[in-house]
């Protein structure tokens, strides 16, 4: 915050202006967050009638549970693959869209509007596309000799989930990459044209390094997306099936907390996730700090 900014005189006014936000944050953020923290140290009987303090028992159970560790590993692999593929494809499309002169804006609209589709709607669309009775893709894969069976095969289900998650995330990455590309000053591009004739080489030595800040920032966005926003997609497409092989950490919080009604365990998972997000935020901040030096 710059100190040079002129401020308005001291008065009750700022408190009035900030009050609604603070009230909402207190009631709907800090209260539940504190509850999650509190409950993660409690063991509740199955009827919710009594609970007792058990210390780190819930965390101990969690980290000794092979199913949870499996979910943990799946979430990491899933996030990495979704981020990589959606970033790579979006970068390719953005570079091409930036290259061409004719038809730029139709392409831009066509490549971005999928952003507006809810993950849950994307999931249900995919469900029908892959559906055995009416869908086209499962049959197509079978015809190609791949015994594709997402209902029973964990690997096939994961492939399907990743494919749909990537599909949904391409537009956001495309928008940011295109904005990043168009933010590169014309003079730099012209200088690069004079200094380097090979377009491939020009991309990797000039354009890509200049896009690196955007790419890093998008990486954080994509990991966040894969962690949290894909909930609706999973719930409509696989519901973690088969056998929990497509369950992410967030989906498991929901399953254990709502469907399984194990509040203590679910809360402990919330706290673990909170720590993961915290780590992600710290990484992001370190990066932003570094960016200032450019």
């Amino acid at each position, binding site marked *: 915050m*710059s100190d040079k900014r002129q*401020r*308005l005189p001291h*008065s009750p*006014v*700022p*408190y009035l*202006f*900030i009050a*609604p*936000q603070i009230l*909402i*944050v207190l009631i*709907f*953020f*800090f209260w*539940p*967050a504190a*509850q*999650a923290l509190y409950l993660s140290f409690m063991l509740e009987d199955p009827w919710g009638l009594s609970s007792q303090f058990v210390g780190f028992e819930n965390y101990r159970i969690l980290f000794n549970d092979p199913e949870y560790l499996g979910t943990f590993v799946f979430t990491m692999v899933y996030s990495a693959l979704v981020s990589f593929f959606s970033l790579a494809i979006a970068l390719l*499309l953005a570079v*091409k869209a930036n290259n*061409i002169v004719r038809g730029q804006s139709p*392409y*831009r609209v*066509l*490549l*971005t*509007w*999928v*952003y*507006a*589709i*809810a993950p*849950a*709607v994307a999931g*249900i*669309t995919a469900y*029908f*596309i892959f559906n055995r*009775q*009416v869908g086209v893709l499962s*049959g197509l894969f079978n015809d190609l000799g791949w015994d594709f069976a997402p209902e029973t095969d964990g690997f096939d289900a994961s492939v399907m989930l990743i494919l749909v998650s990537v*599909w949904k995330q*391409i537009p956001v990455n495309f*928008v*940011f990459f295109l904005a990043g590309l168009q933010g590169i000053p014309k003079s730099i591009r012209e200088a690069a*044209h004079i200094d380097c004739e090979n377009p491939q080489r020009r991309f990797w030595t000039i354009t890509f390094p200049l896009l690196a800040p955007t790419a890093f*920032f998008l990486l954080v966005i994509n990991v966040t997306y894969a962690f*949290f926003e894909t*909930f*609706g997609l999973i*719930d*409509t497409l696989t519901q973690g099936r088969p056998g929990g092989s497509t369950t992410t950490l967030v989906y498991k*919080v*929901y399953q254990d*907390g709502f469907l399984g009604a194990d509040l203590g365990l679910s*809360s402990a998972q*919330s706290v673990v996730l909170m720590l993961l997000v915290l780590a992600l*935020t710290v990484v992001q901040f370190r990066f932003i700090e570094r960016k200032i030096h450019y």
Partner: protein
Amino acid sequence: MTKDHWSDHLILIVGVLFLLTPLWLLFASSTHSVDTLIREGLQWLPGGEGLAPYGQALTTASGFTDTATGLRMLINSMIMGVGFAVGKIIVSMAAAYALVYFRFPLATFLFWAIFCTLLLPLEVRIVPSYEVVSDLNLLNSYTGLIVPLIASATATFYFRQFYKTVPNELLEAATLDNAGPWRFFKDILVPLSRTMMAAIFIIMFVVGWNQYLWPLIMTTEEGYYTIVMGLKHILSVVREGRVPEYNVAFALVILAMLPPVAVVVLFQRWFIQGLVESEK
């Protein structure tokens, strides 16, 4: 440099097809009869039913649920999208104004309190949030649907960044023009924020419309179902093995994506600005 390379267009067209084919397939199939769909699967070309399945999706309870018609769910989604966007803009503009233009003892503390909300998305604290809303008797209400989602601070930071780019001299000139804090906000800052508000409105409308998990756990009365979460019931019908009206189901899916897509396409420029700025 001035001539387009055909391969660039080819790659872009492949990308567009990858993104759009599934949606086209769903739309084309929604205009066919149930029999055709069950016999022949998804259709590539529009069929004889035309938009009739859409009429059915809007007006009847579709057999998926008992009281929630497509129209009712669309209206609920609209209330949710608009209410969320408007509420978020008002709350965050006011909070950002307090943070940027005033020096007050609790400012730093409150800033970090608001910042904390970025650390813990609703999905993570879903169970205790449900408990809180339930304790407040807000289940099955628009307030309960909308207000808890406003807790996240993204828009507050967005407006905070924007206010910081407003030249300081405007505040000084207004001070000399005898404008107090309220007048400066109302007469200068809000009108200056118009494009920012439009951009953030579009993003937030889409976000609000697309909410899934929260309405899913919040609403048990079907009169409050939103269309995105209502789709889950289509699935349960399919999964229970009853013969579903696929065409009507597809029509509902298309209806669920139509409003946010329309907003994004029609206000492309604001949408891009809002997206790029709000994520920073």
